[in-house]
Structure formats: C-alpha cells, structure tokens
C-alpha cells in the first residue's frame, strides 16, 4: 500500500431544497499529481469545490487531509489547512498592486496594523519568481492580461501555503499559447509535490495535463479517482453523459444555391478584422469556428451595428447596406443576435418572460399614440413561446427563475417574434444540460428549414458538426478557410484544426 493520499473524501452528501447536489461522492487525490474533476454543467463540480473549501457544510460524509479529519466551517479554515482555490471569476482588486493582491489576506484582522508596501513588494517578488512571472510587483493588476491575472491568483493561493490547489476552469479565457505557459507552471508545481485539482470542459487539455480523473454525473460518481492513462476522449465523454457523443443522423445539406441573404465582402473593422468575406443563404446554417479570441463574437457585433465597419461591403439580399446602430439592424434589417452572455446581454433576468420576448417589437406594436397593451404583445409573442415549449408557470414569471435551457428558449423566441430573417446564435448551449441541448439543436435546424439565414458561433466541435451546413474558420480576426460540412466527425475536425493552425 502506498503512502496516505493528500486528500480523501468519502460519502460526501449535500442537498439543497429540492435537489441532492452531491450523493455519496468519493474522491482521493495524491500529492504531486494533477487530478481532473469532470462533469456536465449541474453535475455537482462546483458544489464539491464549495464543500472542500468550507462554503457549504456537508450533510454527511467525511473528508481527510493528510489522513486527518477535515471539516471546514468557513473558507478561512480551508486556507489555513492548505487548500487554495483559483475561482472562475477574477477575484482581484483591480487598482491594487500585484503584491497587495497576492497578500490580500493580510488586510483582514487588526484594523490599525501598518501595511508596508515595500515589504509586500519584496515578498511578492519571491512568488513571482516561483511562477516565472516577469512583472513589476508594484504594477496595478488592472494593467495585466487575463492570463497574468490568473497567475497572480495562483501566486496568492501558493503564498498561503496551499498544498492542494483547486483550479476552476482556469483556461476558460486563455489563448492556447497562454494555456501552454500555465500548464508548464502547473506541471512544475506538481513536480514540487503540490496536489492540483483541475476543473475544465476542454477534454483535450485534461488529457494533456492530468494524471487522474474523477467524473461526476447528476451528483454521483461516474468514476472515482482512476488513472487517466488508457482512457480515450470518447470514454471520458461516455462517463460524463452516460453515452458516447452522437452527431445526430441528419443529412448533409447544401443550401448555397439559394438566395444570398447576407454577404460581407472584404470587410475590415476597427476591432481588428481584416478582409473578411462571408455569405449566408436563406435556410442555411453557416458555422463560425475558431478559438476563443478569434474575433467571431466581435464580427457578429459588427454585423449587428454595435461597432462600425471601416472598409468593405455589407449587402442584404443583394442590396448594399450601411447598418448604423443595433436598433437599425433589428428593426430595418431584421437581424437578431442570441448572445453567448445570456445573463448580461441577452435577457433582462428580473423582467417577465413576456417583457423579454416582446422587447424588440414594442415599437412596431405600439399604436399611433405610443400606447401598447399587454394583450397585443401577448398575441404576437405567445405563438413563439408555445412553439419553443418554454417551460414557465406563467408569462409573468421573471426569466431569472427559469432554468438555463428555458432561458435560452426565451432568447430565441424573442427573435422569432421579431420576425428575424438573419439570426446569429452565439454559443447556444453554454450552461445547458445535454437533453435540452439536443432539443435546441433540433430547433435551430428547424428554424433554418423555415428559411431563416443562421450564423452559428460555437467552440463546441460536435455541436458545430451537428448543425452547420458550411463551416467558416476564423483565426486572429481573419477568415482562414471554408469547408462544406460532410458530417464525418473525425475528418471534419481534422480539416478545421488544420485551418486554424494554417
């Protein structure tokens, strides 16, 4: 038998009103290893992290740290026992220096203690050296790139003496180059004996860097702390969703002979797009594929009139147009945009379903005195809300109380009600469970059959291959190529990857 594992969780159960978030979950983690925690959204990963860091007390089960009982009641207890977390959202004070952010903990406690900045800076330099960050510790963190901010957070966790570091989707907003640099550091930390737990949705990364894996599904272990070696991508996916990832058995379509609804020719924008050509035909789904930061959502926002276009031509149904504002795009050109950021850009969460779906058509429906009754809005929106099967107790329900999938349906219903001719859908299945995702895919396919020209932006390769008729690949704010979708996953993904790197 080997030495005691660094961390062990046994029979962890945690329930919230109406749901069992964690059900008898087990996990064991060795010092000097990188352990992946995987699962679909809602599988219980965040709850487990919160249980480990003392945010949520356990209902039952126990945790051992170095073989000693560990039962944190507040986060500070977790920190003092050597468990550090790097959260998904940035937890830095923007105007404070790198040094002060690393040692933010020192500000708690006695209120009148002196803060000696010179000492903080000297101490911080040590940690920056450990992580090979070449930056002046007195620089405010707001001047750093996202990747470096992340490293500052890691430095903070390490400075607290963390022997177990929990990383919640650390690569979500990093470029591939930054990810490589981060992985180099994580590997070194591992070799120095730190235990790391890595939560990510990017399976390629997990396979690249992790040694062991625990998969959660619906709050239970789908597998417990097994070695990653020998597990293929399909095996992991099968563990996560209970079956292997299936590209629906739809026919490949070619709609490029139909009317060209939207066409961009040699378009450049102040955001950095150069010479972008793009055509979308009626009833066609054109996929925009690329890594995060390739400029896809930004291009969508230029088409939508949020940002101007410097050079080149935009035509709608053959007519050259100049889209001057989002209102212009929505009302005159009937362009709709389902944002990847539902909560901030797509929906007004505290408003009702009816108000959200009706917002784009208020002006059109109002009578000549500018008056608008609920009845009128209802008549024009209800058919779409019903068609998309939005599950809501009533139209007066605030959207914030609906599930992610239903929120997404409300976003789509909104644009259908607006009689959108061109719909841009950005990362439609973020935060949506696998069943709703399949339904959403059928819906998008149906919309295109109804004649809407669709632009689909997604970083989810299977989703792209399931839905798109044509795939346009972008890299660094340029279009690097275009392929007709044959629906053969392996062949397609290879071609797309080649175009990204090309």
């Amino acid at each position, binding site marked *: 038998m080997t030495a005691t594992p660094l961390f062990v969780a046994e029979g962890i159960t945690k329930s919230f009103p109406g749901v069992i978030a964690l059900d008898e979950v087990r996990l064991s983690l060795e010092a000097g290893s990188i352990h992946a925690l995987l699962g679909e959204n809602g599988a219980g990963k965040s709850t487990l992290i919160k249980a480990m860091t003392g945010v949520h007390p356990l209902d039952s089960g126990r945790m051992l740290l170095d073989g000693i009982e560990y039962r944190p009641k507040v986060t*500070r207890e977790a920190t003092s026992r050597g468990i550090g977390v790097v959260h998904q959202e940035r937890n830095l004070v923007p*105007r404070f220096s790198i040094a002060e952010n690393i040692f*933010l903990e020192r*500000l*708690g406690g006695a*209120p*009148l203690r002196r803060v000696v900045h010179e000492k903080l800076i000297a101490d911080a330099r040590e940690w920056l050296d450990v992580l090979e960050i070449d930056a002046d510790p007195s620089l405010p963190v707001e001047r750093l790139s996202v990747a470096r901010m992340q490293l500052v957070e890691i430095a903070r966790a390490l400075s607290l003496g963390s022997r177990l570091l929990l990383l919640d989707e650390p690569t979500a907003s990093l470029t591939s180059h930054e990810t490589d640099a981060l992985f180099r550091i994580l590997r070194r930390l591992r070799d120095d004996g730190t235990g790391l737990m890595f939560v990510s949705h990017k399976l390629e990364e997990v396979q690249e860097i992790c040694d062991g894996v625990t998969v959660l599904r619906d709050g239970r272990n789908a597998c417990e702390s097994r070695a990653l070696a020998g597990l293929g991508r399909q095996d992991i996916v099968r563990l996560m969703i209970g079956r292997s990832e299936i590209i629906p058995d739809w026919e490949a379509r070619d709609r490029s002979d139909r009317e060209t609804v939207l066409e961009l020719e040699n378009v450049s924008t102040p955001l950095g797009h150069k010479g972008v050509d793009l055509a979308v035909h009626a009833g066609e789904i054109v996929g925009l594929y690329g890594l995060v930061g390739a400029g896809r959502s*930004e291009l969508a926002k230029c088409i939508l009139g949020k940002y101007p276009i410097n050079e080149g031509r935009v035509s709608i149904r053959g007519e050259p147009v100049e889209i001057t504002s989002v209102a212009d795009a929505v009302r005159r050109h009937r362009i709709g945009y389902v944002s990847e950021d539902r909560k901030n850009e797509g929906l007004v969460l505290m408003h009702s379903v009816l108000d959200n779906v009706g917002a784009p058509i208020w002006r059109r429906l109002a009578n000549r005195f500018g008056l608008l009754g609920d009845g009128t809005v209802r008549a024009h929106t209800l058919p779409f809300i019903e068609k998309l099967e939005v599950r809501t107790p009533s139209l007066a329900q605030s959207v914030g109380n609906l599930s992610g999938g239903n929120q997404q349906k409300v976003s789509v219903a909104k644009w259908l009600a607006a009689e959108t001719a061109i719909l841009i859908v950005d990362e439609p299945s973020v935060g949506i469970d696998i069943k709703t995702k399949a339904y959403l895919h059928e819906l998008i396919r149906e919309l295109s059959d109804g004649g809407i020209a669709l632009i689909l932006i997604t970083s989810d390769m299977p989703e792209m291959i399931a839905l798109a008729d044509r795939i346009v690949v972008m890299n660094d704010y340029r279009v690097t190529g275009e392929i007709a979708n044959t629906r053969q996953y392996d062949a397609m993904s290879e071609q797309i990857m080649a175009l990204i790197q090309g």
Partner: protein
Amino acid sequence: MSGRLRDSDWFGPFLVTVLAVVTVTAFSPSFLSPFNVQILLLAISVNAMVAFSQMIIIAIGQMNLSVGAIGGLAAIAFGGMMEVWGLPWPLAAIVALCIGLLAGLANGVLVAMTGISAFIITLASLSIYKGINLGITEAQPFYAIPQAVKSIGNDTMLGPLPWLVLPCILVAVGLWYALERLSIGRAVLAVGGNAHAAELSGISVRRVTMIAHAVSGFLAALAGIMLVARLQIGQPTIGDDWLILSFAAPVIGGAVLSGGRISVAGTFFGVALVAIFTQVLVLFDIDPFLVQIVLGALILWAVGINRYREVRARRQLGVAAP
C-alpha cells in the same frame, strides 16, 4: 515619472487650481490679499470635511445621503448643549462628535446587516436625523455660542491661516495615511474594488462597511461643529446644502462611484476649486447663483477626463470600450 504624475488622480484638479489662482490674481490682485485668503481657507476647511465624509463611503462603493443631516444634527447638538445645558465647549464638541459617529454607525449597521442598499438606508436616516434636528430646535437657531468657539472659527493662528485649517490638515493627512498604509484603509479600498475578492480573502465586508459609515458620520459631525464656530450660531439648516458638493469634490478628484478608487489630495483640490470659483463670482460681482452651474460644469469636466483616460487605457490594451 511625468506620465505617472499626469495620470495620478489629484494632478488634474491641482493644475486647474493653480491655473485658476494665477488667472484670477492677474485680473484682480486683491484675490491673494490676506483677508481674502483667510475667507477662502475657512470655506475650504469646512467643505473638505464634508467631502471627505462622503469620499470614505464612495471608497466602499456606496453613497451616504445623510451626510448633511448628520452634520446638522451634530451642529445643533453642539450649540444646544452649550446654550441650554451650559456644557463647556470641548465637552460639547466631543459629545457632538460621538453623536455623529453613532449616527454614521447606525447607517453602517443597517446597511451591513440588512443588505439593503446604502442609498435607501441613508435616504431614510437623512429624514430621521433631520426630523430629530427640527424636533429639538423647532427650526430656531442656538445663539449663545461661547467667545472661545467664535474665535476658533474666525481667528487666524499664523499669517492668513485660520485655526480651522488645523483639523482639516490633520484629517486629510490621517485619511491619506490610513488609506495608503493601514490595513483598515486598504481593506476599505479592497471592498470597494472587489467586494467578493475581499470577502474570500478573509476581510469582513460587514465590519468594513460599519467602520466606513462611522468614520463618515464622525467627519460630517466635525464639519457641522466647525461650521457652528465659523457662523457663530447653531443653525438648524446647517448641512442642508452639502449633498451636491459632497459628491462633486471627490468626483472632481478622480473618484469612481462604483468604489475602490478615491484620492484624498484630489478631493481636497476638488473642494479648493469649488471654493475658488465661488469666490471669483463674488469678487467679480457675478450672480452667486451661477455657482451651481459652474459646479455642474466642473463635475462633467472631471468625469469626462476620467472617461477619456479609461478609453485610452483600454485602447492601449487593445480592447474595445464597453
């Protein structure tokens, strides 16, 4: 270094203050006469307390609408205790300061414990504190202010420097030191900059909120007491017109209302600028009601500069402005 100086929050208001002094003196040399300087410094000293009182709440990303009401309550308490109870003035001042501290603390406790926004809490307490003030005074001033207090409020200690400059300097230096070099001051700025991060780092957001409001109440009370000394009368209306200035000066000094970013020196020069403009209007015999318009223009100028800096910084980082 020159770039850093130019980018620091206080440098802009400082430059404009110097420019204003030079320009006005060129047109009217009497602007720098000892008497005029004394009047100017008296106004700045009191108004700086008002501005600092709001600044400390802006620092944690909240607002305190009751600054004026607390100042007024402390002022009439100070006057009333001396006239009605015959308390010696230092004792009355200490009690009045305690009243301000407690009034601020009450705001802080309510905000921290209920989670209701400070805007609403202090809107309510503004009404309550003002009501207590009017209930006590029945809108009549206290006239019996001891000679000692009157001379503190109007005499000079050195050249044209009035005595009231002393508390102003002490508070300014004290605040600067606390915000830069004491853990509580850094915690205040951390809570304003990112409350979530502060909480996760073991900083008690509740405690910081309560302390900041208590300090705010204390400074508002100090401003009220200083104003009683200067006006030589315990006016129940003291504090009624503080609100705009209390926000204007910190904002001119580079403060961001969402918190985490304030400048003691910038706020001070914001106060100085407003005082100078007010004086100028009197000096050149212009309608003093124009002050309001000038104040509004100053605020727009200051936030315009801040916005420009922000956009420029983002452009340098290669990201679009939101």
